Each structure stands twice: as C-alpha cells, then as structure tokens.
C-alpha cells in the first residue's frame, strides 16, 4: 500500500516530476502520465529532452542547472512562457487557446550533506487564469477605447485628441521630427439644421460627416470631434500645403452630396481652418488657436472654404 505522501504525489491534480543532474526522470506522477501519454514506467530513467524534443532545451537546462548550483527555488510563469509541455487543457471548446498554460516551480532536494541531489518540478495548470486574464484584458481595452471615443459619432473625443497633440509636440521636441498640422472643421449653419429638421436629424448629420471624412485619411492621421459641430484633424508629418490639400478634399467630401435623414435631404457644408505647428508655437493651445483663427477667416469670407493661418510678420520699429 502507498504511504499517504506517495499517494498524494501520485494522485494530486498537478504535475510532479523529479530530475537528476543528467536530466533523467526519477519520478513521474499520474498527472504527467495522463497529459503526456507516457506512463511512469516508460518515463523513469529516461532523459527528459529525449522524451520531449519540443522542450526549449537550452533555456531549460540553464534553469535546472541553476537550481543545482544555487540551491534555490526557480520559477516560470505562463505569462512570460505560456507552456513547456504541449499538453491539452480542460477547456477544449471554450478556451480559445492552444495548449495548457503552465506555471512551474523547481525545487532543490538536498541530501544530508546539503548538496542538491535532485530537482523536483511541479506543474500547475494555469489555463483558467490565462483565459480569464485574456478576457479581462479585452474588456479593459474596450473600456479604454470607449473612453477615447465620442459617444455619438464614434470618432476620437477631445480628451484623446488633446493627448495626441501633446504627444506629437513631445515627439517633435525630442527627435526634431517633421512638424504636424492641425485642421479645425466647423459645420456651416448647424443651428439652422437642428432648428429646421430637429435634433435627431442634426445627430445624423454629425455621424454622416464623420463617416465622410474618414475614407480620405492616412493611417497616422487622427480625427476627432472637438465639441458641438466642430471636428479636428491632426496630420502628423504634414506641412501647411499638404494640410491645405487634405482640408480641401475633406470640404469636398462633406459637401458633395446632400445628407439623407428620414425623408429629408439636407445640404451640408463646412468651413475649415488650417495651421502648422512650427516655431514660435510651443504648445497645443497655440496651434489650435491658430487653426481657430483661420477657421474664423473662412466663416467670415462666406463659409464652405479653407483658410490657412499665416503668422503675423513681426513689426519692425
């Protein structure tokens, strides 16, 4: 009959095995046998790396040797190294991951003289925590995303845009990168649209404008709603002429067709202001202020147009 200790080692729902200095298996419990398909009689006395050629030998040898030399516990976690053995896990249907996630502990077993005679290895199945953590990360990311997004239009919100402008400025100051430009966009007579067609139609117009702008954007461009009927576009590594051209394309995309809301066909145009982040600008506020001044010129000059901010010549004398 097995002693209680032997019984527990054999039957516990965790992998336990033991290796000598030559990586030969000295003990192989039922969990290991069950998951590897290799009975303990077949494993004992054999070299671990011959039995499992898929193991990362170079790395694992170093780990095991360190336990013999340093006489210290060693660990590996699924978070850095998902698995060592290609074992099936107990969530074959709903898991969504390939092999059992594994946490290992390597323990020095000392003889009477204090020398390490064997390394005992335990394997804990971490698949459930891995799945849980993956799910949680997904949820966190969605939450993070949603707090960067404008609820109505789905484009970035002002908080996010401000942070991105800040990032761009830092990048330029750190790496002397090519400047970026900012385009501010305001829908013309939006109040009249709301008054005439109602707020639901107004919301639909905002959503449709956001949809029409996006196909014309490059990958690094950042587009968001800046508040009310105002949108903003950051164009990294774009000078004022490039930004003016982009703004013209956007103006055209918005005004090219009427927007349909219910039975109504609503004509929409936008006024745009463009500014480049270049000396003497040093802050986000200065460059958006400049774009806002250009936008004001567009409005003042009759709307549905693009204006570019030109720095005032410093007065001499």
């Amino acid at each position, binding site marked *: 009959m097995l002693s209680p200790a032997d019984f527990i080692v054999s039957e516990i729902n965790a992998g336990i095995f033991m290796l000598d200095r030559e990586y030969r298996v000295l003990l192989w419990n039922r969990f290991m046998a069950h998951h590897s398909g290799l009975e303990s009689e077949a494993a004992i006395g054999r070299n671990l790396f011959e039995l499992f050629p898929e193991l990362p030998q170079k790395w694992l040898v170093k780990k095991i040797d360190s336990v013999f030399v*340093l006489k210290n516990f060693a*660990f590996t976690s699924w978070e850095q190294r998902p698995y060592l053995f290609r074992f099936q896990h107990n969530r074959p249907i709903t898991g969504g991951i390939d092999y059992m996630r594994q946490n290992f502990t390597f323990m020095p077993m000392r003889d009477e003289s204090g020398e390490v005679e064997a390394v005992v290895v335990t394997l804990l199945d971490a698949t459930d925590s891995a799945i849980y953590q993956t799910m949680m990360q997904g949820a966190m990311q969605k939450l993070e995303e949603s707090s960067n997004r404008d609820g109505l239009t789905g484009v970035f919100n002002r908080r996010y845009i401000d942070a991105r402008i800040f990032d761009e400025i830092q990048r330029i100051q750190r790496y002397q990168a090519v400047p970026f430009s900012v385009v501010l966009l305001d829908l013309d007579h939006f109040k009249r649209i709301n008054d005439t067609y109602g707020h639901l139609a107004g919301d639909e117009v905002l959503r449709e404008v956001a949809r029409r702008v996006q196909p014309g954007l490059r990958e690094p461009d950042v587009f968001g709603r800046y508040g009310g009927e105002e949108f903003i576009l950051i164009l990294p590594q774009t000078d004022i002429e490039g930004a003016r051209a982009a703004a013209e394309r956007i103006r055209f995309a918005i005004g090219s067709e009427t927007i349909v809301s219910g039975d109504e066909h609503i004509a929409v145009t936008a006024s745009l202001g463009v500014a480049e982040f270049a000396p003497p600008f040093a802050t986000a506020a200065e460059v958006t202020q400049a774009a806002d001044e250009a936008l004001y010129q567009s409005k003042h000059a009759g709307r549905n147009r693009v204006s570019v901010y030109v720095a005032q010549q410093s007065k001499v004398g």
Partner: protein
Amino acid sequence: MNDQLLLTPDQRDALQEVTNIAMGQAGAQLAQILEVFVQLSVPRINITESANIAGNILQLVGTPQSVTAIRQAFSGTLRGEAMVVYDENGCRDLADLMGYEDDIDRDSERELLLDVGNVLVGACLNGIAELLQAKLSFSAPTIMAENVEVGRLINPQQLTWNYALLVEVHFTLEVRDFTCHLMTLMPEESIVALKSALDAFMENF
C-alpha cells in the same frame, strides 16, 4: 507603536550583520551570473508605518525616478514580501550583460527581471534563514510594476498592516550605471518571530 516591535540595539546590530553575510552570498551569485564585480551596500533597517511606506521607499532609492519592480512572497518562520526594484537603466543593462541582442522582446525582458530577482531574493533570504535557523519557502515572483514613479510603487491604502520591518540592500555594478534594490518587508507578527530568532542567534556568541 507597540514597543514589542522595536528592535533593541543588539538585535538591530545582529540583523544588520546577518543581512550583510547573506547579501554577500547574493552578491556573489549576481556577480557569477553577470560576470562583473558587484559592489555591496551596508544594509539599512527601518521600522516603517504603512502610511509612510511610499516615502520610505523613495528615500531608499534616493532619487525620484521611474522604476520596474518584482515582488516575491516568502513564508515559514518568517513571513513577508521581498521586492527587487530596478532603476530606469537597470533593465536594459541587464539584458545587455546577459548577452541578449538589442531586440529582446518584452516577455523575455520580464523573464530576465524575474529570474535575477528570484536569485537575489532566494540567496539573501535563504542566507538569513540559514543563520537564524529559520525555514522559508518561496512563491513565484511576479512583476509588481513597470516604469512607475518610485513613490507610487506601493499604494498605502491597500496595505493590511500598520507597521513593518523594512530591510534594504542594494547592488551596484562597478562597470555600469546599474543599481537594483532588494527590499524585504515583514509585517508585525513576523517582527516578533524575527526578534526571538535574533535573540536565540546571539546566545551562541
């Protein structure tokens, strides 16, 4: 504070020496891994109040900077947590010294920090335990924080103890701008156990 928690001057001196010996072993192992000479510090010992822990850690690290830290729990005769705090350059230097190429990925870097931390914690605490005839076991180290301000490493509101013993040693490399701090924190009931272990140790001399 309960006087029972205060170390007598003799106990403090003994703990300092025991830590110093254990640290020598840890330093030698670090030197062996990295193949460079490791400079050892004089151990610093404090009783800290949980509300002041952030400030105490900041003081031990010296300058406010962003750090990466691992933590590892130990239990047995003594119970507590050890942290290894790597300074900003520490992680990169470590990868470099261990012969990794430039493009070490994040997971390998984390694994490296965990492994080196585990060696330091194991060598140091096993050394102390051996001298004091205490028995310790260790749980797996985990990443505590990456690139956070050192003053924000521990949130005092999450702590369940009022006083803890904080023992700090640090290792610097002669040839590099690398420092890591090993901090061991033991809560109240462990301080009492430690004090009697120190008393028993001192009886031998």
